[in-house]
């Protein structure tokens, strides 16, 4: 019953003259004066929310409309929120791209309790990318050391085979091979960073709410990280839905099934409350 008061969204596709209404029901007005075809969500078989398009298979028909057909981004975000709530209620097949923030189907309507911290921020791309890369470093560090040592050994081997190691040149070969290992590791690091940044940018593009104001809530009952235009004050994700968290200097990153599920920037909250927030998170989730 979370997000139960979302205003239905009307989407107008001027090319084919169809108007779609996504709300308590899914309605399709075809061009012309005839009444709309209306589906309850239990008649919907599949919804796929892509980067640019939403496709809904209902009854015997299939409908699709692009993000451009929405009046504004708020409508687009609200339509996805409604679909995710209905997905929770009716269990149709739901396909979606990777998200920066948890699906609305994870939320429950409950009282946040007395100790509750609420903040709002737009995710800073640089900060989030840095956190993203920090996470990558966390995973890459051992691999980079391995690459450096391997390249160092290979370089020594090559030099030995081609020139031959003697007492007079061994002092030159060691720094050369160390430098080769270091440079290769650095190249790998730069390439992976470029890939990571690219991946992050792609992630930002797939989640339309990533570049819009987000409401962050941390309480003992749960947390929320949700576009402000759809957030209702009592909707929270229970802590049990997450597995663990990682804290960087600028963010808390919550993990579910070993992949990041929510990025909570510290700057969204007042500075003096960050330590209390960290305490609540640490009490509720395992830190890695």
């Amino acid at each position, binding site marked *: *019953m*979370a997000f*139960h*008061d*979302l*205003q*239905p969204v*009307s989407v107008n596709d001027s090319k084919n003259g169809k108007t779609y*209404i996504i*709300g*308590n*029901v899914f*309605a399709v007005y075809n061009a012309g004066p005839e*009444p*709309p*075809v*209306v*589906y*309850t969500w239990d*008649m919907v078989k599949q919804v796929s929310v892509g980067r640019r398009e939403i496709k809904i298979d*209902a*009854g*015997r*028909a299939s409908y699709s409309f692009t993000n451009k057909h929405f009046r504004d981004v708020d409508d687009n975000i609200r339509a996805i929120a409604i679909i995710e709530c209905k997905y929770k209620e009716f269990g149709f097949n739901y396909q979606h791209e990777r998200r920066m923030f948890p699906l609305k189907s994870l939320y*429950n*309507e*409950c*009282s946040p309790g007395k100790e509750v911290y609420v903040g709002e921020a737009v995710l800073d791309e640089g900060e989030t990318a840095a956190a993203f890369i920090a996470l990558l470093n966390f995973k890459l560090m051992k691999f980079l050391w391995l690459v450096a040592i391997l390249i160092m050994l290979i370089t020594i081997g090559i030099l030995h085979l081609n020139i031959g190691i003697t007492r007079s040149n061994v002092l030159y070969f060691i720094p050369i091979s160390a430098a080769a290992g270091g440079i290769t590791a650095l190249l790998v690091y730069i390439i992976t960073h470029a890939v990571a940044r690219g991946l992050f940018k792609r992630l930002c593009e797939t989640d339309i709410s990533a570049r819009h104001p987000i409401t962050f809530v941390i309480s003992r*009952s*749960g947390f929320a990280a949700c576009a402000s235009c759809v957030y*209702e004050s*009592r909707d*929270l994700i*229970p802590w049990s839905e997450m597995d663990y968290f990682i804290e960087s200097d600028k963010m808390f990153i919550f993990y579910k099934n070993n992949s990041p599920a929510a990025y909570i920037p510290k700057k969204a909250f007042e500075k003096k409350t960050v330590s209390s927030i960290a305490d609540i998170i640490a009490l509720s989730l395992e830190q890695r």
Partner: protein
Amino acid sequence: MPAEVRSEVITYGEKSAQLISVRHGEAAIGTCFAGYTGIGGTGAVTRLFFIGGEPISVVICPNNDNKQSNKLISIAPAFKNYDQKIYNVLGNSIKRINAGESLANGLRDIMGLLEDGVYTVYAADYYPTDGAGSFFWGAYNIPHEVQGTAEKNRFIGTKSFKPCFLVPSQPLEYFTKKMKTVSDESSKRREIQGIAYHLSGFHSVLLKGHHGAVSCLENDIPFRCAVIEKVCEPYVETLLPPPPPAPAAEAAEGEAEVAETAQPVQAAQEAPVFVPEGITGFRSPSLKVPIELFPKEMLKLVLEGRPEYKPKQFASLIAKINVSRKKTVSNNILPLAVLEKADQLPDYEMVESAYAVNSLSDEQLNCLLAGDVECKGEVIISPNFYQSIVTACNFLQFTDTKRFVDFTIAVMENPELSATHEYVAKRALTQLSSKKLYKFFTDAVASGDAQYEKIVNFANTFISRYKETS
């Protein structure tokens, strides 16, 4: 922005219905989701019926808000009093309706206080009980399962039905003898005695006319209410294939003719049932409106609306849920005659059976008495025998008292139907004017036969009550 209230009459077949659309309504009267009974989004869903800033009724919807489950309803302990403006609107509306204005006009001001949406209004007789024999105004002090409050009824299925039981919008402390004296007089003059807002299943909240309900029941005046129902529940009706076309020309005589005419009939029978794309329309308990019959603007309002809104005063309503009111004990007692008469009114099971069963012929009743659930190859009521007897008994009690008496006696005389004896005897207790039943029960007690073992207590109760009343 002031509320936009528009009314329109739609006609379908020979029937017509009044639809009223509300846009920019104040949402001062309505229901809203109020969380869960458990912690962290678990437990039963709780809803509130509110008027202004006051929570009126707490409705607990068990089994994860299953629409086939009865609700637990109680008067909200925090109730203080109506907002004076709303109280005046309710009072003026009932005066206007009884002064001869149409329901749509008379209720216009109340409609402006509702949530956005499309409503239907009509007048109907209500039984001022909770559906289980208790007078409604005092029957909801403790949260308990109220029979007939499920949105969907397994026996009635998708048929329309008129809600006929009540939930009060005031605690019983507000009953005063002084007010009742006034309503004793006014109820004789009025055609419409109260205003009811549909809450769930067979139950509506009485917005206005609590004292009138007491007076009407005491003086045997039908309690007729102006009823407001929201039309927002989608429904689907499966269309059967059209009947097979008549043969164009007379075929040759004999077997060939039979074979030829049999083919299209068989084909039609085997043809898949035509299921229309999407839903058929939107409904309230008493009215089904196909999509094509909806006025265009009203349909848009239904599609772009929600069944429930979060009112502006949501936070204060939620905060008041667990607050207890100071005045919880009252010396105002309802007249005993009212309580006794409430017990005699049709209960939920009777009304449900009346809607579930279209008709029962004597032949069908005889089949049931013979222990069959089928008559001429068709299931009479239900494949469950006990259920069939119970439903038949309730149906007859509601529709035809004479046949009910004959049927109950026939059931109780049949030792093979002993599983149903207790239920049927309990039902027969309400027919205190029946000489036949008195004679039957007297004979049963006198005979001391083991087959009447289960009904002896009921028989003795009936005999003593019969003697008291006669």
